[in-house]
């Protein structure tokens, strides 16, 4: 639905370049062959990574069950076993070789990933028992272990799914920690706001930066997913818990409003465009969303704008996936009866359609 360049083919693109004298006609043949050779190359690595990851997870969970059922791994040896498996995982990754299309590479990569997953799980369980009460895991212990293992293995172990899942798991554990356990007397509200701010700041740097090392892409997506999960949790929490929450969304609303306006300006090109009518109205819309306290909707719009501007479909799809969920939750949470909600919904819909009409009148849509 948002892919507007369906009709521009590679053939058309190459001819446009030649007509604009941006490439010499003699280079066309080379570019054609290169593009054709890339067609299968682009799709295949992702499909293979999916297969490798699924296989590795099944193997890791099977081995984990074996080790615990046979009591080979037990407290306090878990920590040591975890380290052994992680080192084994790194070793397998090193010896897997550069020749991608060999049985050895495929098998050793599999072995590397499942020993790494196994090692991380066992290490986290072992470390958390060492930190906490004897023989019992604590949430802080698990989170600290996840942080430690992610930081250590991220630069050393290059499989994207492992980096993504490990980082995401750490952020989710940290969120759980902040909301469940006291931390040196600091209020949950302060911790949550700080946590959200740091995530947003990191996401902003990684997503907006023009030249980002491909090694940081899993980290970028993990932080983005974590932001969505954090926002979702803060909105759902009062519904699930059915009690007053010990945090408020004022700060989160504020920084998301500022982020959305900044993003609209960035997408427009520069700050001077803020004076132009469409950008000004879009910014006022963002401000209105901040006033009515709709952090989920603002975050989804940020992702949609980023995804569209950078032409990164995962971001765009993430935003499109979450926007109906956050819109639903927003209206569900409104402290109004059904009749009043119906008027609010119809009014909101009419405002959006007025915006649509404005774009049509100004011939922008």
């Amino acid at each position: 639905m948002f892919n507007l360049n369906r009709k521009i083919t590679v053939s058309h693109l190459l001819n446009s370049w030649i007509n604009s004298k941006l490439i010499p006609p003699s280079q066309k043949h080379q570019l054609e062959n290169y593009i054709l050779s890339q067609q299968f190359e682009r799709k295949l690595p992702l499909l293979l990574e999916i297969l490798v990851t699924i296989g590795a997870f099944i193997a890791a969970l099977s081995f984990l069950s074996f080790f615990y059922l046979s009591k080979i791994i037990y407290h306090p040896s878990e920590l040591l076993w975890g380290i052994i498996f992680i080192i084994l995982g790194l070793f397998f990754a090193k010896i897997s070789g550069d020749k991608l299309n060999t049985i050895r590479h495929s098998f050793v990569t599999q072995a590397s990933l499942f020993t790494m997953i196994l090692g991380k799980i066992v290490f986290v369980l072992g470390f958390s028992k060492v930190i906490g009460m004897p023989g019992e895991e604590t949430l802080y212990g698990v989170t600290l272990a996840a942080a430690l293992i992610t930081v250590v293995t991220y630069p050393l172990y290059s499989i994207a799914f492992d980096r993504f899942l490990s980082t995401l798991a750490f952020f989710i554990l940290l969120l759980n920690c902040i909301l469940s356990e006291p931390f040196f007397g600091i209020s949950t509200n302060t911790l949550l706001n700080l946590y959200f701010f740091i995530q947003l700041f990191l996401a902003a740097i990684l997503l907006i930066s023009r030249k980002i090392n491909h090694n940081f892409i899993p980290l970028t997506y993990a932080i983005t997913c974590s932001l969505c999960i954090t926002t979702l949790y803060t909105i759902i929490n009062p519904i699930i818990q059915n009690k007053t929450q010990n945090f408020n969304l004022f700060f989160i609303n504020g920084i998301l409003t500022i982020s959305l306006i900044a993003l609209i300006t960035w997408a427009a090109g520069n700050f001077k465009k803020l004076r132009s009518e469409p950008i000004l109205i879009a910014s006022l819309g963002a401000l209105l969303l901040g006033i009515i306290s709709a952090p989920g909707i603002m975050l989804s719009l940020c992702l949609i704008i980023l995804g569209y501007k950078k032409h990164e479909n995962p971001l765009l799809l993430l935003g499109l996936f979450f926007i109906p969920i956050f819109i639903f939750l927003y209206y569900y949470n409104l402290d109004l009866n059904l009749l009043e909600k119906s008027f609010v919904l119809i009014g909101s819909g009419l405002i959006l359609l007025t915006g649509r009409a404005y774009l049509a009148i100004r011939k922008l849509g």
Partner: protein
Amino acid sequence: MENESPSNKNHHLDSIPATREIINTLFSHKLISNEARKYGIQLLYPTHNWGFWAAKLLSILGIALILSGIIYFLTFNWDKMTPLIKFTLIQTGIIACIITSFFCVSKLIAEKFSLLSAGILVGVFLFIFGQIYQTGADSYNLFMIWALLILPWVIISKFAIFWAHWLFISNTAFMLFWIQAALPKPEADMMLFPYLILFNSLFLLLREFLCTKNTNWLQGRWTRMVLVILILALAIFPTMVFSTNPLHATYSTILATLVSIIIHIAFYFIYRYKIPDISVIAATILSVCIILESFIYETLTQLLTPKYSIIYLLIGAITPFIFTLAIIVLRTIAKKMEKTHV
């Protein structure tokens, strides 16, 4: 590829959509200048598209919010409304959607979503009808009549999402019919799966046939993948049931397993040789891996219970071999496909 005839190469290049990714890859390999990169990006994603994209988003969200508001209004006043008012409101909504669709022929999104809304409202009408008149009919009746009533609109809409919605209703009707009306004997209960597989495969074949006739609205890859994944999921389940007790499997389980095997083989041959699509091949291979894992687990459980630690050890050891073989097969197929079709 180097020896490919110019006409073949041009045909392939004309079927590959230009994307930002292709441009960035060429730039990162220093095959084009930064100027060419910027020109290409501007060609693919001109600035004025922002307005078009924002307009579409505002339209869809605005309509969705208004419809939700109407539903909330109706829900609030439901008990106070007489059946006549309820039916009048829904029917007015259906007629309004049809009229909007008729007058918005030039505005494709409005036309298609209006028809889709009308289709959804038909279901709402049938639900209210059943509620008011308390006919005692089974719920499969509702879904079946719903699917039949909106079928003409689905056909004329040429809208993939509407087709997906219709398939969802049809599959639900079939499943509910099986449970509520067909009431099969225990030995025949697995026949549901081959029927559903055949039903959905028919639509997959129809989709592929229409795509060969350059039917633009079906060209989205998701229309194929959704059907493929659904069919494979339907194929996996009876096979896993068969693996729990192959010697005492009912005839319906055996038949469902046979159909499952045939479907996997069919997918391989069709999407390997006729309509090359490496994603479908990968999904089929993954499905085979899951079935194999299930067989191995059941076999080991029957042989080694209660030594579960040994069972998990063996599964853990065998799994990397299965998936490594899958990866090798997929790579080999991809390479051969690249040579023959690119």
